[in-house]
């Protein structure tokens, strides 16, 4: 393996320290936001927003603006568009339409670009090992905003996600909750795309919380576990990528899927154990918590 001969000591030195720092921040935010993405059944939206925002980066590089600004603008506008269109139409159709419009623009921007920008290409798969120290501050800033916003809307978001109409009757507007949440997804996307890429942020946002919900029936613990699984996935992936020179994305994707698979197997095993201990009687027993 090409990178196999590197010293272990270097894995925490110099540019690698930036990678660990930024990846850790990204993993925490993805695990946290992802819990609600899975709870709300919004996986398609979590796929569409980062992929569509890629067009913003292409547009930004065309007019000579920082790609992160382009990403942010497209992510937020796309998220609001999905939320507002989804009010009247089926939300999966609205999401798909927003995605194709943005991808279409991305194709146009790329074709207008005189120079083929490898920077844009790296946005698809991320470049965590190439993260510079200047990226740490904006990543941390956006992370604080995301976590703070989720903390602020936590209870209405939970209520609205589970019992939308009941929440509405108690003054919790579903539209306002949806739009706030989508903006959080957009901000999370903006900060994470340059690191793990548009194609892979999705796997962190779905794999970790999808696995976590199998192990606990408590929302607070599921969120904590989701963040934990996300962190282990990202750290392991960076170490493995450093050691092997295979792309980080490969490891993030496979490990997320593996975590989810283990979670499902655990769920099935728990059902079996419950059936056995209940002696075939059907009554609502407590899950492991």
């Amino acid at each position, binding site marked *: 393996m090409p990178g196999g001969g590197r010293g272990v000591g270097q894995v925490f030195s110099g540019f690698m320290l930036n990678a660990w720092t930024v990846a850790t921040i990204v993993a925490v935010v993805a695990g946290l936001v992802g819990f609600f993405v899975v*709870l709300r*059944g919004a996986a398609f939206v979590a796929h569409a927003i980062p992929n569509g925002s890629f067009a913003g980066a292409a547009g930004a590089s065309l007019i000579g603006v920082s790609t992160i600004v382009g990403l942010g603008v497209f992510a937020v506008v796309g998220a609001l568009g999905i939320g507002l269109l989804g009010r009247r139409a089926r939300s999966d159709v609205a999401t798909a339409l927003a995605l194709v419009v943005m991808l279409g623009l991305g194709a146009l921007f790329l074709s207008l670009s005189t120079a083929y920008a490898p920077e844009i290409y790296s946005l698809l798969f991320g470049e965590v090992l190439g993260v510079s120290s200047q990226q740490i501050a904006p990543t941390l800033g956006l992370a604080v905003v995301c976590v703070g916003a989720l*903390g*602020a*809307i*936590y*209870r*209405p978001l*939970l*209520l609205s996600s*589970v*019992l939308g*109409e*009941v*929440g*509405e*009757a*108690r*003054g*919790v507007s579903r539209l306002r909750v949806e739009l706030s949440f989508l903006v959080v997804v957009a901000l999370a996307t903006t900060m994470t795309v340059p690191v793990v890429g548009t194609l892979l942020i999705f796997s962190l946002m779905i794999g970790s919380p999808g696995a*976590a*919900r*199998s192990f*606990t*029936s*408590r*929302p607070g*613990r*599921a969120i904590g576990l989701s963040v934990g699984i996300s962190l282990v996935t990202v750290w392991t992936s960076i170490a493995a990528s450093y050691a092997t020179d295979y792309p980080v994305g490969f490891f993030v994707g496979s490990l997320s899927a593996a975590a989810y698979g283990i979670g499902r197997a655990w*769920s099935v095993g728990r059902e079996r154990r419950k059936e056995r201990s209940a002696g075939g009687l059907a*009554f*609502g*027993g*407590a*899950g492991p*918590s």
Partner: protein
Amino acid sequence: MDQLRRQVDEEILSVENVSVRLSGRQILREVGFEIRAGEFTGLIGSNGAGKTTLLRVILGLQAAGEGRVLVGGRPRSRRNPLIGYVPQKFLLDPDMPLRARDLVGLGLDGHKLGVGRPSRTKRALVDEMLRAVDAEDFADARVGQLSGGEQQRILIAHALIGRPRLLLADEPLANLDLRSAHEVVGLLSRISAEQGIAILISAHEMNPLLPVLDRIVYLADGRAASGTVEEVVRGDVLSELYGRRVDVLHVSGRVLVVAGTGDEDSLDDSAGRGRLEIVS
């Protein structure tokens, strides 16, 4: 609780001449009735009669084209703490990491911003509500994995924990087996009596409710007749409401509302076309 007792005669809900048109169709026509504290009222009507629309108007989820709704003597506002709402049965994700007790807790503070800290007071209140609906045995189970009747009880606890004066329940007996339906009716009736909470429950089938109903609001084609069961569930009253002849039959303790399906003014079971239709 003493305060509640003193206000037993108070009008909790007053629906005055409410009419609603939705995309060109007249859903409700000049519907009016009152509910007093502690009363158990059934909102009865077949599918499409306007029950859900009426409940949505009372909840403030649907604007009334004409007429008004007063809650506790005041025009109803959004986020009205006087009203608790138990939605129609729907499917909860069985894998969702949310215990029955978490859902009940959201009834208390789910509308507030922030994460909220666990407190002894809140836990005690949640336990009390779980006890009130006989849900202690499955309090720690995932709410999505409970049976229909169990979920219904959790949703009732969720609605009750905010100490409403009026509990609205949309078809809580639909999709429940006979035994669970009986349990839910008994539970609601007990809560109404013990806590002085008025209850308005919609149903397309009135028989399971007849033993506990103080009053009935009968909806047909968007029009309503209200009063005690004896006053409303009569051939002449319902015939006028339906605009055609219907009969009220008492068969071994059950009430059947029947109408001929033809245009004839009378029941006719001789021809094949004129079969009896059981309306409710």
